[in-house]
């Protein structure tokens, strides 16, 4: 079995995990790593897609949805994750909001060498906020998404799923 095959992440399997966990709303901003997933979500009638133009408001929007009884997921890129630090602090961590972020891991390389500062700062950023995260790079990793949802609900906190991209991420192949 070649390496490319074993590290492939199918957006259908990711979507299956999202639906399995009762997601009702997707708060999203375009992201090249998870575009394939976005297209599938858009076609899924049980999901309501809410586009934002900056990631900070995605946090407060998700907090409002969750307070109102919905189960949102936030679909953004790691660059945007870093933009929304204060909103993460105040609207999610500060209000005990259980929400999962699906974050495109721009610059992620399995061998660990990258020049992309978006990737270099992603995990230190999450660690600084005390936000737990799971790396999902292949179909075999997909069940970690359910673990993330369960953890968010149990701890009443945001939990992040980092979607790797070296082999195409969840873009259609």
């Amino acid at each position, binding site marked *: 079995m070649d390496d490319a095959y074993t590290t492939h992440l199918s957006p259908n399997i990711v979507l299956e995990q999202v639906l399995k966990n009762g997601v009702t709303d997707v708060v999203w901003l375009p992201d090249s790593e998870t575009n394939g997933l976005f297209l599938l979500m858009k076609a899924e009638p049980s999901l309501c897609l*809410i586009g934002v133009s900056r990631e*900070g408001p995605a946090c407060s*929007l998700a907090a*409002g949805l969750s*307070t109102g*009884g*919905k189960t949102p997921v936030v679909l953004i890129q790691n660059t945007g994750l870093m933009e929304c630090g204060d909103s993460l602090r*105040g609207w999610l961590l500060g*209000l005990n909001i259980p929400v999962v972020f699906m974050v495109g891991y721009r610059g992620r390389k399995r061998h660990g060498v990258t020049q992309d500062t978006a990737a270099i700062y992603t995990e230190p950023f999450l660690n600084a906020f005390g936000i737990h995260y799971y790396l999902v790079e292949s179909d075999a990793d997909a069940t970690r998404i359910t673990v993330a949802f369960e953890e968010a609900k149990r701890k009443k906190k945001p939990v992040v799923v980092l979607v790797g991209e070296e082999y195409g991420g969840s873009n259609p192949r």
Partner: protein
Amino acid sequence: MKREDALIQTVEMLKIFQQHRGDAIVIPGRGGRHWVNISTRPNLDAPLGDPAMGGHASFALGLALARPERKVVVFDSEGDLLMSLGILATIAEQKPANLYHFMLDNECYATTGGQPVPNAKNISYDAIARGCGYPRASAYIDLESFSKDIGDILNQSGPVFVALKIFPEIETVPLGQRLRWMTRTRVQVLEDLREALAIAK
């Protein structure tokens, strides 16, 4: 009459709004310290203070989409809105018929000492909202006109945007020495709201 004498006092505006509030969910935003003493339905309020600046409108949008059977009223501020103007486009796209977006414009950052917001006196926020796609947007500079129209405003289908020129209540006391007006923690506020709306935890 001096211009500042003609501006709307937030506390008086909220007293008038209260008469029309019905069973709406209210996110009082920067008006929270007045609203907690005016509201007769505190369990339907979300006086969160300032969890992180710029997020009141998007929080209100989330609640409005989640609870379409309820009116959701938010008292945003121009400083908050300027931080996340793009949310106007999102709200207009989502078209929540139950969202009433009031914006208190005191032309300054009152909680940090009254420094002016950028281009404070020359922005037409109602025009921006309309330009982003809000079907209904208006502006008020005096309480009398607001008082006449508030009933009709709340009977319109949302999203509705209303800009209000308000008198600046500038804070000069250092942050740690200010009188605390929040009587519940933010987490408790949301738990009470969920209970009032019969939302399972």
